[in-house]
C-alpha cells in the first residue's frame, strides 16, 4: 500500500468519547452547549479566507448527480433524489450569484451509463427547469463513475486555459460499474488540470478519496441535510486557481440595452438569438442587447454570442466578483462586559444584547452578531469604514 496521510479511523483511536463534548448545566439542560456549538458553526464559515491567493473567477463546473437505486433511500426526506434536486436548485442560484461569468452543466448517471441533463451554459433558468423536471426520473441500476467523468472530460478539455475546470460529483451509491481502469482516467484528469470534488451521501468510498486527492479536490460525506447544504455552499466560492492555469486577456463585449417603446417609429420587433432553440419563449421583442460585433440580439446577459463567439457581459456582472478579490478582514470578538462605549450596534442601531461584540479593526465600531454575519456574507463592506474610506477609483462608469 502506498504511504498516504489517512485520517485516523475509529478503530485506530481517532474518535474517543465523543459524548464528552456535550456538557449539562445545573438544571440538566443541554441548551447552552447546543447554542454554543451553533454559534461556532455560524462563525466558522465566515473565516474560510484564503488570503492573497489567485482565484479562479471564470469557472466551468460540471455537476454529476448519481440517480442509481440507492437514491430512493428515505434517510433524507422525502427521498434522497428529491432532496438533492431541491438543494441543487439552491446551489445553481447561489453559484450564479457569486460567479456571474461562469457556467454549469449537469450530468446524471444510472444503469451503468451517464447522460447530460443540460449542457454547459451561463443561464440559470435552463438548469433550474431541467432540475425540476428531473424529479420524476426513476432511480435504477448502478452509477458509473468512469462514464460520467469521461463525459465531463470530453467537454472540459476544449475549454480555454484561463478558466478553472471543475467537476462536482454527488455520489450516493457505494459501488460503481466502470468499463475500464479508473486509475488511468484519474491520471488523464490530472493531466488536463480538471479538479474533481465529491460529496458522498452514504459513506466514504476509497476510490473517491484517491480521485479527489489526485486531482486536488475535496471529499466530504454528509451528516444530514443541513450539512449537505453547507457543503454545497462551500463549493459556491471560487477555489484557488492552480498554479499552471494560464492568465490571459479575454475579449468581451459590453452591449447597450436598447429600450424601445411601441410609439417609437424606428423600432421594429425582432427575434432574439437565445430563443432560436426553444419555441416556448417569447418570440418578437422590441428591446434587447445588441452584440457590438455582429449586432445579434439577445434578451439577457451574460451570454456567448452564437454568431460571432464574443462573450457578452455587463459591468455589474464583473463588479459582483470583486468582493472575492478584496476580501474583508474578520472582526475582533470581544465579550460584552469588557466593551466600553455605548451599547448600541453601529449598523442596526439596536441594543447589544449578545454575549460578545464584534469590533472592526479599522474604525473600531461595534456590531452585533447578526450584523457581523450580514456584513461578511452579503454586504462585504463595513458601514462605518466607508464613511471615511478613500477607495482607489479604478471602476468608474460615468
Amino acid at each position, binding site marked *: 500500500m502506498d504511504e498516504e496521510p489517512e485520517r485516523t479511523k475509529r478503530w485506530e483511536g481517532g474518535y474517543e468519547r465523543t459524548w464528552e463534548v456535550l456538557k449539562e448545566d445545573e438544571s440538566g439542560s443541554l441548551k447552552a452547549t447546543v447554542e454554543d456549538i451553533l454559534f461556532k458553526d455560524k462563525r466558522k464559515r465566515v473565516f474560510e479566507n484564503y488570503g492573497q491567493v*489567485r482565484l479562479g473567477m471564470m469557472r466551468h463546473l460540471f455537476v454529476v448527480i448519481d440517480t442509481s437505486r440507492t437514491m430512493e433511500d428515505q434517510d433524507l426526506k422525502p427521498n434522497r433524489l428529491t432532496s438533492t434536486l431541491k438543494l441543487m436548485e439552491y446551489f445553481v442560484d447561489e453559484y450564479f*450569484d457569486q460567479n456571474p461569468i461562469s457556467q454549469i452543466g449537469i450530468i446524471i448517471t444510472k444503469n451503468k451509463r451517464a447522460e447530460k441533463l443540460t449542457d454547459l451554459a451561463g443561464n440559470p433558468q435552463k438548469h433550474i427547469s431541467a432540475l425540476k423536471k428531473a424529479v420524476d426520473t426513476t432511480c435504477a441500476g448502478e452509477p458509473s463513475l468512469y462514464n460520467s467523468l469521461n463525459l465531463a472530460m470530453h467537454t472540459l478539455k476544449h475549454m480555454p486555459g*484561463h*478558466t478553472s475546470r471543475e467537476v462536482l460529483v454527488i455520489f450516493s451509491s457505494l459501488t460503481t460499474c466502470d468499463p475500464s481502469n479508473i486509475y488511468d482516467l484519474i491520471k488523464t484528469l490530472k493531466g488536463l488540470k480538471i479538479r474533481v470534488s465529491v460529496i458522498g451521501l452514504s459513506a466514504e468510498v476509497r476510490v473517491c478519496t484517491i480521485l479527489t486527492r489526485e486531482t486536488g479536490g475535496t471529499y466530504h460525506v454528509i451528516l444530514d441535510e443541513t450539512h449537505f447544504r453547507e457543503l454545497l455552499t462551500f463549493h459556491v466560492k471560487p477555489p484557488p486557481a492552480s498554479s499552471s492555469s*494560464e*492568465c*490571459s*486577456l*479575454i*475579449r*468581451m*463585449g*459590453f*452591449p*447597450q*440595452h436598447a*429600450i424601445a*417603446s411601441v410609439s417609437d417609429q424606428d423600432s421594429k420587433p425582432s427575434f432574439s438569438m437565445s430563443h432560436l432553440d426553444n419555441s416556448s419563449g417569447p418570440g418578437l421583442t422590441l428591446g434587447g442587447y445588441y452584440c*457590438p*460585433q455582429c449586432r445579434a440580439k439577445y434578451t439577457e446577459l451574460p451570454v456567448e454570442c452564437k454568431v460571432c463567439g464574443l462573450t457578452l457581459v*455587463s*459591468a*455589474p456582472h*464583473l*463588479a*459582483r*466578483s*470583486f*468582493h472575492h*478579490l*478584496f476580501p474583508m478582514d474578520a472582526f475582533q470578538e470581544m465579550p460584552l462586559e469588557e466593551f466600553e462605549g455605548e451599547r*448600541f450596534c453601529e*449598523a*442596526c*442601531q*439596536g*441594543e447589544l444584547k449578545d454575549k460578545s461584540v464584534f469590533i472592526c479593526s479599522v474604525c473600531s465600531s461595534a456590531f452585533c452578531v*447578526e*450584523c457581523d454575519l*450580514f*456584513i461578511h456574507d*452579503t*454586504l*462585504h*463592506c463595513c*458601514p*462605518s469604514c*466607508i*464613511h*471615511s*474610506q*478613500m*477607495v*482607489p*477609483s*479604478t*471602476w*468608474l*462608469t*460615468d
Partner: protein
Amino acid sequence: DEVSLLVVVVDVNPIWWGQQAQREPEFTLSKCLDSVMVMGNSHLVMNRTNKLAIIASHCQESHFLYPSKHWKAGDAAGDDAVSSSRDGKYEVLAVTNDQISEEVRNLMARNIHRVSKELEAGQEMKSRILVIKAAEDCALQYMNFMNVIFAAQKNSIVIDACVLATDSGLLQQACDITGGLYLKIPQKSALAQYLLWVFLPDANQRSQLVLPPPVHVDYRAACFCHRNLIEIGYVCSVCLSIFCNFSPICTTCETAFKIPLPQMVKPKKKKLKPAT
C-alpha cells in the same frame, strides 16, 4: 400580515444646500424636509402595519433622524415622528464641512442592515429605500455602492431615487438592478407632489399606475487606461480589470499574458494525378 417598511434617505450636504439657498430662495432644505415628512406621514397612514425610517446623509456621517437611538420601545407614529425628525435636522445642520463629495451609499448600507434585522424577527416584510439626492456623485465609492446594490437585490429590497439636480449614473444602475424607479424632478418646488404621486405606492401597486418611463441606463464599462466607455474590451482573467487594447502586462495585478499568435495553417498537398 405583511409589514411594509419605507426608508427615506435625505441628502443634507450643507455646501449644496447653501448654494441652493442663494440660487432659488423658494426651495430650501426646510421645505424639502417638509415634503419628506408629508410623505412619511402618508405612508404611515396608508396601512396600520407600515413602518418608517428617515436618515439624513451628511458628508462624513449619517444620522438616523427617525427612529432615534434612544427609543427602545416600539414605534410611535404620527406627530411624534414629525417632531423628532425636526430635532435631528437642526443637529445635523449645525455641523459644517468643506468637502463636496457626496456619500449616500454608506448609509444605505446601514438601512439594509436595519431592514434585514427586522426581517430576522420572523415577519414578512417588504421594504424599499427612497433616496433623495442633491449633490453630485462621488466616483470613489463605486465598489461599496455596487456591494450595497447587490446586497439589496439579494434581499429583495427595492431602491428608488428622486434626483433634485444632476443625473447620477450610480443611482440609475441601482434602480435598474433592484427594480425601482428613477426620477429627475423638473420642478423642485413641487417635490411633495412628486413624492406622493410616484414614490408613495408600493411595488405591487406600481404595475397598475402610469408612472414615468424607465431611463436608459448605460452599462458599458470604462477602460482602466483612458477612462473611455468601451463596447468591446479585454478583461484580465485574474483581477477582472478592463483594457481597451491588448497589452502584454496587466497594470493592476502585473500578470504577464501570453500573446496569441496566429495559427499556422499547413498548406494542403495536392495529389498529382498520374499522367496517363
